[in-house]
């Protein structure tokens, strides 16, 4: 097996509620000793209910949340030890697609400006070269050059998310963290956006770190799935293995809760290679 592009080791973070009168501070573990690897060209889906810590994990990779302890290795460098300034070159390689495309695009900027901003930030190319890149990335996500002078509110929801993906792609990142990128979209648009992501990944050899609560989306998209429950990674396995041979009781519950057909747990009940099961929460 090749070396992982991103290795996350023992990530932990706790939030404390405000101290009550005569009471104790209550601790809420958003991440509890989370470890996983992400390989080049792979899609890894992190699945869990709301509040399970999946978003905090994704945000930690991009330094939008600071873990209390743990290490994140990217190309052999521990990202958590870097200062803000030393982190900046890595921002090009680690990008994010947001859940709500409307809120994540500046309403006062036109499409062209939104896409040009990352290129200006990283001082890439002349004005002409930048325009070329912008047109390329618009084309790659299925938008046309006509959209350049539109404002985000003049686009449809699906087009906005395409724009969000184009913005993440324009710096040619190695990893894209997708935080529920389709949950704010109409069901009819969701499949288009998911297929676009898969397509781009194949063409460019990207690694996708996909955060979702929707198991059918994870199954459609990912090579491996991690299940997170109350800040703990309870089970991790290749997609087919997880769906046929879930071992942790929480995973079994989660799979059984998919509406429609009855789950078919035909597996052996013992973990295969690459299948990790936590001993917590049995």
């Amino acid at each position: 097996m090749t070396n992982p592009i991103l290795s996350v080791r023992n990530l932990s973070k706790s939030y404390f509620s405000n101290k009550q009168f005569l009471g104790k501070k209550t601790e809420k573990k958003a991440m509890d000793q989370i470890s996983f690897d992400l390989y080049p060209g792979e899609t890894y889906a992190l699945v869990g209910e709301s509040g399970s810590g999946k978003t905090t994990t994704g945000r930690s990779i991009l330094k939008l949340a600071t873990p209390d302890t743990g290490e994140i290795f990217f190309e052999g460098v521990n990202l958590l030890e870097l200062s803000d300034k030393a982190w900046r070159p890595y921002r090009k390689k680690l990008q994010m697609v947001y859940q709500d495309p409307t809120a994540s695009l500046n309403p006062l900027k036109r499409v062209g400006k939104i896409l040009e901003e990352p290129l200006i930030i990283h001082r890439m190319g002349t004005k002409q070269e930048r325009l070329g890149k912008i047109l390329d990335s618009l084309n790659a996500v299925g938008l046309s050059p006509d959209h350049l002078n539109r404002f985000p509110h003049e686009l449809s929801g699906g087009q906005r998310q395409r724009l969000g993906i184009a913005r993440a792609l324009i710096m040619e990142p190695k990893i894209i963290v997708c935080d529920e990128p389709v949950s704010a979209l109409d069901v009819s648009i969701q499949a288009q956006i998911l297929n676009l992501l898969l397509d781009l990944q194949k063409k460019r050899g990207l690694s996708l770190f996909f955060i979702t609560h929707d198991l059918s989306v994870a199954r459609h998209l990912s090579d491996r799935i991690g299940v997170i429950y109350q800040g703990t990674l309870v089970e991790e396995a290749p997609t087919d293995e997880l769906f046929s041979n879930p071992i942790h009781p929480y995973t079994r519950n989660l799979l059984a809760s998919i509406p429609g057909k009855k789950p078919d747990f035909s597996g052996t009940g013992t973990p295969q290679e690459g299948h990790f099961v936590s001993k917590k929460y049995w």
Partner: protein
Amino acid sequence: MKNQNKSLIPIWIGSSILAILILFAAFGPMLSPFDPFEMNMAERFSPPGLANLMGTDEFGRDVFIRLAYGARNSLLIGFLVAFLSSLLGIVIGLYASYYKFLDHLLMRICDGLSAIPGILLAIALMAAMGPSVTNIVIALTVVSTPNIARIVRSGALVIKKQPYIEAVHTLGGSHSRIIWLNMSPAILPALLVQASFAFASAILSEASLSFLGAGISEPQPSWGSILQSSTHVIGRAWWLALFPGLLLVLSVLGLNLLGDGARDLMDVKLPTTKKGGR
């Protein structure tokens, strides 16, 4: 479309009033043959007529031309105060919203300044610095900056939490890029509206200061000091109170209409910032 036309009416009225005032300040002195400082004791308290459009004061000076020169002072001071306090206010408000340690420092200073009634603070500053137009501008800027800073800060705190600001951070944008290129444009509508109110209140404060004798001092003309001179002769020289009072009411009304209209208009124009958040 009809709705939009409706909300333009206050802007039209407000800007017409303001335009008339500016024309009055710019060309009024040229229309009158009188000198604002020339006394003519034979013509004291002559009522408005063909010779003196708005009558004369206790020294026989023409009120029309003194009001026109006073308008220059009022508009100049009002504009400078609005401009300077917007400039200071946006810097203080944006940085306070962005950096937590600056927030405590800057906002406590603003709290302290706004704990003192504005006009009292202005009088104290004028007493300390001495009367001059520059000092009036400084004193009134000190008075109105905390308000603007607070409004900028509260707006910026909302914008700062928007995912599109975080997105710029993820793209590697520097703090100053986020503050000046991404947050400040979203604040601008609110700032412009607040600046027009600051303009109006600066005109009013200048008149109050001059009325109280702490602002522009005689023989320099000011709406406030002309009003002041009318107080003991109001029974026989009503024009000394009516015309400067009318000008004050009109200018404040015009600016407030402009500000209100702009606020309504720009709220309509920015639907995505309101709907976008969660």
